[in-house]
């Protein structure tokens, strides 16, 4: 699903964010990306959906050559990915249903499957009965669940989450992780950057630790591993 070969990223300021990263993430994996702020986690995540471009090296995501691809291909890479952020990024003037449907609308998905698909993903995140609510009427956890529904409504092969529980209390965070686990069980690859030690330690998934732009640890069934 994701293959990195000698990927480097140096910003114009001269700061090195990633330094010769080699990595393979296969279909159906659940991977945590851990590391201190500024270690290169965000750059790593942003490269996967080509928000950032590697300075050198080779990066293949879901069959797309991210470095060599034409601008016009970028939307098609992103259609295979579901992206979730710490701050949910919902549209405040749209209802829950509309927020999720919006993701289908803008890639011109057929209308006849829209209703069914949106209802199905709202079922997955447990918000079917709140489909007419506006984001401001929901709790943080519920808003993040809407964001997850939006990320998976186009049936992506990889879900990329950048600190999805960063704004949530522990109990709500577990609800979110529960949803991720179900999505993963259905065959979707999940890459999640996080600071949440408890979650990483408890889930026993593959953990990739990044420090100063390098992968310093990559273990199956790993733990958070830092004394922070």
């Amino acid at each position: 699903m994701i293959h990195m070969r000698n990927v480097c990223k140096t910003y114009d300021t001269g700061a090195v964010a990633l330094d010769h990263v080699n990595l393979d993430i296969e279909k159906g994996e659940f991977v945590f990306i851990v590391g201190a702020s500024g270690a290169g986690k965000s750059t790593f995540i942003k490269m996967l959906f080509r928000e950032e471009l590697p300075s050198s090296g080779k990066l293949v995501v879901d069959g797309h050559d991210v470095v060599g691809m034409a601008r016009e291909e970028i939307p098609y890479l992103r259609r295979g990915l579901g992206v979730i952020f710490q701050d949910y990024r919902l549209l405040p003037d749209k209802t829950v249903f509309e927020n999720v449907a919006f993701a289908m609308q803008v890639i011109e998905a057929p209308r006849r499957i829209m209703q069914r698909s949106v209802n199905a993903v709202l079922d997955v995140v447990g918000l079917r009965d709140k489909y007419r609510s506006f984001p401001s009427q929901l709790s943080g956890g519920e808003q993040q669940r809407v964001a997850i529904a939006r990320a998976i409504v186009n049936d992506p092969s990889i879900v990329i989450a950048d600190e999805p529980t960063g704004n949530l209390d522990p109990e709500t965070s577990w609800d979110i992780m529960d949803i991720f686990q179900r999505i993963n069980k259905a065959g979707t690859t999940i890459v999640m950057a996080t600071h949440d030690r408890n979650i990483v330690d408890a889930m026993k998934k593959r953990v990739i630790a990044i420090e100063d732009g390098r992968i310093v640890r990559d273990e199956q069934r790993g733990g958070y591993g830092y004394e922070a």
Partner: protein
Amino acid sequence: MKLRTGEYFIQEVFRSLKRNNWMSFASISTVAVSLFVLGVFLLLVMNMNRLAATLESQVQISVYLQDDLKKADREGLQKDITNMQGIETVKYVSRDEAKSRLSERLGDQKYLLDALGDKNPLPDSFELTVVHPDMVETAAKAIEHMNGVESAKYGQDVVEHLFDITRLMRIFGVALMVLLAGATIFIISNTIRLTVFARRREIAIMKYVGATDWFIRWPFLMEGVVLGFAGGIIAAVALRSFYAAMAAKIYNTLAFFPLMPQYPFMNYVTVAIILSGMVIGAIGSTISLKRFLKV
């Protein structure tokens, strides 16, 4: 583009027109005023061109003969002139004929001639037409020096002046057009920038879920075109009634003035004005998209 997508775009356009109602209003007004002023200039230039061309094609030389010229000399002179290069026709107009023509031209004011009684102050003359308007000046000068000729007059200087004026107006019109188009494009691109700003969250999400660049751009481009179109319609309607009113006035006072007829001429002008509005709108939004929509 799918039908439903078109529906979505149109919805988006009207939502942001409503959201930026003051800027939209300002844009439409600017487009309308600019295009109207441009249209007035266009009408002026085209009509002056037509007037100059009409006068030019009518230019003829009037050769006034000395009073005491004998018939034989006159006929010889006529032959000489007819044989000159570039002269098309030579027509003899007797002083009696000239007087009756004048009285005809005076129309209602024919009584002015009564004061003359039986006297006729007009000379005999030839009316010449030339093959090409350029030859008028040289021919007239040459003829003036011939024996038996009192003077040779022509309207060339009037035509020249008219052409000078239209040329100036055309230059001024182009400068004005550039200026007004620039101002209009600026206003429209500002309006679109507000829309881009108001929709930045949506745009970001559209990018993350894989909307194509053109899917994101279309509503903005359409908004600019709609603004230009609305302004163009207003300008065209105003211009049509303006021209109709002016034409009525001119026909009342200067019946023979060679005005461009309203149809189909004004239909072309209308189409041109509306199309210009749309083009200006498209350019305005494109500038804004290039600068503010990083997709």
